[in-house]
């Protein structure tokens, strides 16, 4: 369970998070959606300790997220855009993260095989195509079998086959009771994957609940239209 209370964050004069209160239920796929600049990435980065919140608190499994990095052993993170050390091989990049996670880290090679990454693991990163690098980014999030996945636009830049593999993997992990927090602008993808929706608007939670309830509440059959309707109703904060 992720509990977020009164989370605030400003960058200079720009208030990005204005008191976010949120509970993310375990064993479900929760999508964080919202317009550009709504605070999605900042919220995720606060959870990962990459951004220091100005106020509020985040609890993960009951424990407050603070300066001790140990809690991140239970998180698999795929950033929206990742660059790796250009002169290391994909296998070496994997070994770097494995080494940082310690001897108890479990490697799940299945996704590497299914994404057809195996032949590229001995190639230096600078020789890999953009799509292959993105596959590596996503695979690294799943590689150590964490309990919580934080995936920022995980299928952006992937071909349809790889995108399907990643979506299948997300659903399979949910089936194992893992929690998935995902952001995406691809509504068809969210339609397929998500149990719960968190809609951020101007740094606040405008809606939180199941995708089905959102459809019912807005009277829309499609998630995209339901979200657009809520976003249109939400007044822009001055």
């Amino acid at each position: 369970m992720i509990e977020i209370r009164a989370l605030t964050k400003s960058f200079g004069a720009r208030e990005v998070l204005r008191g976010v209160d949120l509970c993310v239920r375990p064993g479900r796929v929760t999508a964080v959606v919202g317009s550009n600049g709504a605070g999605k990435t900042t919220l995720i980065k606060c959870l990962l300790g990459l951004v220091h919140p100005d106020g509020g608190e985040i609890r993960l499994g009951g424990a407050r997220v603070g300066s001790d990095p140990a809690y991140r052993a239970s998180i698999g993170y795929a950033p929206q855009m990742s660059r790796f050390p250009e002169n290391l091989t994909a296998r070496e990049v994997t070994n770097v993260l494995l080494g940082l996670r310690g001897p108890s880290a479990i490697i799940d090679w299945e996704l590497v095989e299914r994404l057809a990454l195996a032949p590229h693991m001995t190639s230096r990163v600078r020789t890999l195509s953009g799509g292959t690098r993105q596959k590596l980014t996503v695979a690294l999030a799943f590689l150590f079998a964490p309990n919580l996945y934080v995936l920022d636009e995980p299928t952006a830049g992937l071909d349809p086959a790889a995108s399907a593999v990643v979506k299948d993997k997300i659903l399979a992990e949910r089936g194992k009771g893992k929690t998935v927090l995902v952001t995406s602008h691809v509504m068809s993808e969210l339609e397929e994957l998500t149990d719960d929706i968190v809609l951020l608007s101007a740094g606040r939670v405008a809606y939180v609940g199941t995708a089905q309830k959102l459809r019912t509440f807005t009277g829309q059959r499609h998630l995209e239209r339901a979200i657009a309707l809520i976003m249109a109703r939400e007044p822009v904060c001055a």
Partner: protein
Amino acid sequence: MRLTAKVAAFQLVDVARSRWLPGYAAFFLLATELLLRFGGDPTRALVSLTTVVLFIVPLAAIVFATVYVHSAREFIELVLAQPVGRGTLFAGTYAAMVTALSAGVVVGIGIPFALRGGAGAAGAAAVLVAMGVALTVVFAGAGVALALRTEDRIRAFGLALGIWACAALVYDAALLVLATALASYPLERPLLVATLANPIDLARVMMLAHLDASALMGYTGAAFTRAFGSAAGAALAAAALVVWGAIPALLGARMFRRKDF
């Protein structure tokens, strides 16, 4: 400590496989070899090489560190999303950078002097290599702090060049102009303080203690040596260089701990 070593190890492998580091070492190798071969005796070669080191090492260190930290930003984010402390990642990254750049100086200058420098110049050559390492520590630290402070990489690159130009080119000239303009005032103490305020001048004073070469002095170096004598001046300069090495590194570590990635 174990994690810091792991972080440093993978970054060292990455830098060592790039074309940049072998090129840096080859530059010093070639310059040292040419000066030893055609520059007369090893001491004269050292005088010329000192000027090269005092200009090139700070420039390479500050530019490399600035560019490296900016280009590694996304991977830094990914590593920080692992169970790794910020202090550990900073220490590993900084250690890797300093080790790689220092290796270029040690190999590039050390090998030719070891092979053909002769025993007479060995001490001064070792001091020159040590000064190269010290300037690497100082200016790599400054580059890291600059990259963390400045989001725009072009601006950071420009500021890095500006800092280098001020420290390596403008500083001594400005002091000379000031001292000439205020020649009727007692400037000995202010000039000593001015020397302590520039690590390149400090490195120059360290070399002065081992080479009798007035051409190297610069205005502040001459005042420093006059006031303290070679040995005492060198000891004070060495202590000040240690402080200079610590300041940017500690500043960078503090920025790294507080930064929003």
